[in-house]
């Protein structure tokens, strides 16, 4: 007999408790609620290695589930999970060495009618050096503070700020270059 569906509006805390009691439906609901955002964040952090995103999402959830009994609810579950995802991704990028641009061609081609389109921006982001990409994604897209970024990367706040400044400059150059090429 199929178990009854869980109410969709159940909060994360209730789903986590059910999951820890062995309820698979609760996990599915948590996964489907939080993975789309997590996946996009990790994909951007990975840049040119975005084909690894599915493995990293799984690794992130696995690490999260293993440590879930230690989650006290001080931060939002999504924030807690994203922090694990960022850590997992940074480890992955560190282990994998510098394979920055080898799969950039897998990204969609820029739209000529809209040179500074979102796709251009995604491509420009993916083409940034790893450290710059991580800082700009975490700060300007995900809303991390420089202090949080510094903790993740093991650098000082000032270093994070300087890296962000260079990353924005590089993005602007890349986008302007796209505009000149298109015209």
């Amino acid at each position, binding site marked *: 007999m199929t178990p009854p569906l869980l109410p969709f509006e159940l909060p994360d805390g209730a789903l986590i408790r059910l999951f*820890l*009691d*062995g309820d*698979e439906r609760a*996990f*599915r609901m948590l*996964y*489907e609620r939080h*993975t*789309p*955002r997590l*996946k*996009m964040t990790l*994909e*951007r952090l990975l840049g040119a290695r975005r084909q690894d*995103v*599915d493995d990293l*999402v*799984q690794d992130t*959830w*696995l690490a999260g*589930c*293993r440590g879930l009994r230690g989650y006290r609810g001080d931060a939002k579950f999504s924030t807690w999970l994203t922090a694990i995802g960022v850590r997992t991704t940074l480890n992955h990028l560190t282990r994998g060495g510098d394979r920055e641009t080898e799969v950039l061609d897998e990204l969609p081609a820029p739209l000529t009618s809209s040179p*500074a389109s*979102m796709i251009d*921006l*995604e491509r420009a982001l993916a083409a940034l050096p790893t450290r710059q990409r991580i800082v*700009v994604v975490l*700060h*300007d*897209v995900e*809303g991390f*503070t*420089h202090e949080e970024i510094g903790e993740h990367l093991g650098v000082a706040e000032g270093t994070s*700020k300087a890296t*962000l400044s260079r990353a*924005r400059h590089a*993005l*602007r150059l890349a*986008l302007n270059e796209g505009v000149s090429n298109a015209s």
Partner: protein
Amino acid sequence: MHHDDTEHDSDILGMLAELPRTAPLDAGETDRMVGRLRDDGFFRARSRASRWAIQAAAAAAIFTVGAFAGSRYARRNSLEEMLSRQHLTVADRVLLLQRAGSAYVRAAQSYADATAHVDSSAVEVASRVLLGAAHAVARSGLDAGLSARLTTAMQPAVAPETPSRKPVIWF
């Protein structure tokens, strides 16, 4: 959140703010994740009822072990058990003597209470028992004249004057 926003970067920031924040799940992605967690030992939690039963059984087992250990400890320290032991220290033997004496007093008190209204010979019985014990001690030949002194000390208790109060025999 972005404390270092500048006029200069507002165009870039505007574009970044418009980037999509979610990526769609692939077909079967949730199932794959569930399978991986299952391989890792998740979703094998027992039902609430079986967990309750296990907890109750564990509590019963702990209680049984505790009761057994407690009774073993109590028996080990009982008068009979101590009396049967051959190797006691002097201090243990003094303690044993005190406990036996206290037990005698309690037994005599209890007998006196129980027979106060139906048997006026409670004091007589208690005294005879005590005297019998003193004679047994004497027969066993205690050193330093202890047995003789004990017997002498017990003589007045055999035929007491008219008891003016409750017949408590102190050892």
